[in-house]
């Protein structure tokens, strides 16, 4: 990571930007939204799995993925804001890109609001899963489609990838950094999931302890009482 950072400061200034030497932030700015998107999609996938198999491990995974995705959204926003100060000379002006991405932040903030609203774990899981799946379509629309709509006038570049404007050493830096951040996020994700699952299982164990060792003794048994005539008839 550090090495890549150093490298990113030695590379040739990015072409096509007003203040090339400052535009290096781009190598940080670009991977974030991509990773965020991937994580959010993963979150959706895990949520779907939860709804299929009511297994709360999937819920933990979904929560973790969405949390991490949310963090990367924040990073995107942060770098983006810095970037726009550098390039457009203002921290914030209502550029559709900024606006739409802000909504994405809201959408995923709301995901955690939903989780917080349900104390009962099963209910929390199913409700937040349903919400996450509802959210994906709008989120993707806001991240990728909306800023590119013809009637939207945005200063935000949208074709530097498609038209391959990023090339040479610069591209390598972007790619390696993306790779590194990818690895980092995988690592964080696995940590988070392990922690979550541990908490989950320990909760189950406590539940076992709650009724002492009697894991199998039934709390009640059906026993017949005196048989009345009409029952004899039916039997």
């Amino acid at each position, binding site marked *: 990571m550090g090495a890549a950072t150093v490298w990113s400061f030695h590379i040739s200034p990015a072409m096509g930007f007003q203040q090339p030497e400052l535009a290096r932030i781009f190598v940080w700015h670009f991977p974030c939204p991509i990773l965020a998107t991937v994580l959010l999609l993963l979150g959706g996938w895990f949520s779907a799995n939860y709804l299929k198999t009511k297994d709360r491990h999937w819920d933990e995974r979904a929560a973790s993925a969405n949390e991490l995705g949310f963090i990367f959204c924040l990073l995107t926003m942060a770098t983006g804001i810095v970037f726009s100060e550098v390039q457009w000379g203002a921290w914030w002006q209502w550029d559709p890109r900024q606006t739409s991405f802000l909504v994405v932040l809201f959408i995923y903030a709301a995901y955690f609001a939903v989780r917080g609203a349900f104390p009962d774990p099963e209910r929390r899981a199913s409700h937040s899963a349903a*919400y996450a799946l509802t959210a994906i379509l709008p989120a993707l629309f806001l991240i990728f489609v*909306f800023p590119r709509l013809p009637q939207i006038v945005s200063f935000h570049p949208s074709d530097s990838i498609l038209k391959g404007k990023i090339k040479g050493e610069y591209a390598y830096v972007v790619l390696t950094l993306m790779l590194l951040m990818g690895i980092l996020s995988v690592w964080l994700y696995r940590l988070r999931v392990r922690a979550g699952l541990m908490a989950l299982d320990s909760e189950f164990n406590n539940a076992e302890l709650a009724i002492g060792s009697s894991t199998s003794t039934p709390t009640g048994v059906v026993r017949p009482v005196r048989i009345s005539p009409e029952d004899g008839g039916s039997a």
Partner: protein
Amino acid sequence: MNSGWKAEIAAVFGKELRSELRSRSGLTTAGLFGIVTVFTIAFASMNTKLDGNIAAGLLWVAVLFSSIVSLPRTFVTEEEQGTGDLLRQWARPHAVYWGKALFNLAQLGAMSLILSFLYLGFTGLDLKIAWLYWLTLFAGCAALAGAVTLTGAIVARAANRSSLAGAIAVPILLPIMAAGVAGMRAAFGSGFAESGAMSALGLVGYAVATFAIGPWLFAAIWKS
């Protein structure tokens, strides 16, 4: 089978309609909000000429908000009355979702019609492309109804329903509104017609998607 579904959906729809007509709290609140909103906007823009852009935005704010005000009640009421378990016993989730979503659509459609007439009347805007206006409006309402029914179901059992409803519904619905605004702008003659048509189509697509996927998601939360 198919006719079976129809009958069940119709039954849910009818039930909603009947109870709403007997205690009109939902409609009242929404209508109340809509009217006062339109009036406010009209008053605010009294001696200033509205251009298409703002006008479209204002109209959609009104539609979006009044949908959020009234629609979540469909499920919140069930839970607060304690009648949710009746429906859970009697009906299949898909029928519940469709019935309620369609009712919401009807309610929202009616309301946005009233809003439109008041609005166009007050502000004296002229529609350049009428069909685009109505297409956008109704596609938008359908998308809203589908999505809000779902959000209503999600918040129904939360302790802080009212604010949660706003918090999760608005961002989910903003894309709808964005597309709606784009369409309306075109209809009001500012912005490109074809892009407006595009976003109207987008709305139709979104509506279809919600009504197709909605029931499945709904089923998952309804029975838990």
